[in-house]
């Protein structure tokens, strides 16, 4: 154990190395490490955000799909309703048209019938008058007995 100037030399050397380390070795290394740590942290944050936005996007897409599906169902239902409505309308229109035509035909028939009746009545009256003329063998004044004839006509 002989302490001598070596101690001082070693101490000076020590301080030189401390200075060198603190000035030139430690800062750039720590800077690089911290920069990488920041990069990694940023990357993780970005990944987290990406995941979140992906989640929200897929949620949005799901919602949009569900909405579209509902809308499609609605449209189909509306179309079906419309179709049945149209069919119903067409049916009704056809039925109304038929009814109308039936009614027209019926009234025509009735007119025809009444006309025929009228004709018949007239003819029967004429025949009756002619028959009566023949029976009475005298000329019945058609004018004088018009009221009677009309009466008969009505009774027919």
């Amino acid at each position, binding site marked *: 154990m002989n302490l001598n*100037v*070596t101690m001082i030399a070693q101490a000076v050397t020590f301080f030189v190395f401390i200075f060198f380390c603190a000035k030139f070795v430690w800062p*750039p290394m720590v800077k690089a490490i911290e920069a990488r740590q920041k*990069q990694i942290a940023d990357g993780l944050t970005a990944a987290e955000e990406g995941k979140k936005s992906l989640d929200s996007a897929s949620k949005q897409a799901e919602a949009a799909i569900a909405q579209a599906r509902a809308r499609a169902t609605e449209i189909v239902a509306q179309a079906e309703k419309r179709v049945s409505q149209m069919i119903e309308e067409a049916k009704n229109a056809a039925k109304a048209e038929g009814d109308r035509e039936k009614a027209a035909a019926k009234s025509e028939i009735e007119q025809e019938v009444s006309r025929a009746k009228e004709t018949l009545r007239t003819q029967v009256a004429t025949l009756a008058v002619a028959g009566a003329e023949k029976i009475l063998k005298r000329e019945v004044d058609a004018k004088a007995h018009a009221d009677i004839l009309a009466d008969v006509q009505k009774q027919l």
Partner: protein
Amino acid sequence: MAAEGQELTPTSYIGHHLTNRTVSLGDSPFWTLHLDTWLTAVVLGVVGFGFLWWIARGATAGVPNKRQAFVEMLFDFVDDQVKGIFHGNRAFVAPLALTVFVWVFLMNAMDFIPVDLAALFTEHGLHQHEWKPVPTSDVNTTFALALSVWALMLFYNVKVKGVGGWTHELFCTPFGSNILLMPLNFLFNVVEYVSKPLSHSLRLYGNIYAGEIIFMLLWMWAATGLIGSVAGGVLALGWAIFHILIVALQAYIFMMLTIVYMAMAHESH
């Protein structure tokens, strides 16, 4: 490696390997420089910190290569230790801890080189008859480190707490600020401040010096014939493997104590 014509005895062998290469810078014994201790330490420091500087200069924040990853592991390790003990700005204390750890580790690791192999190089390469290759087995080195840390501790005590604050701490801790307790407090603190550098330096010195002595004893045994060679070789291998632990552990302990002393200097009571 005894000198020519000198009888090789255990005492001369060990004595020879523990003799420093000295250079006299002045008249008194104090001005003797242990050239081997100092030069080995400087070369190790230049190589070690040069390597770290080389890596730090080319450090990328992107994907690191294996060298950078290794150095980053070392930095992270040191920084974690400092973070755990020292709460404050680590801009000086962390590099200080790194310097202590790397340098002490490298100097301790010189112990792994068998002294006779090292001597082969120093004798024939450097033409130095005496060369003690382990700087930390020289008490000058450990005292230089411990006293430098001690000086830094005093400096930061004054810088952080002020002369008044530090004086107050010397007289009023750990027992309290009662006037009657002040001498006791001061005595306590003086003992603490004296024991700190002593234990700090002598722990490292003792461990490495003892390790070196045990290596030498085993190598002496290895020179006594076949059985001695085998037994000495096997035991030296075992001791070397165990010594890996001691080398790393002593460097670690020295660093941790440095951090603790720095932390104590920065914390006021």
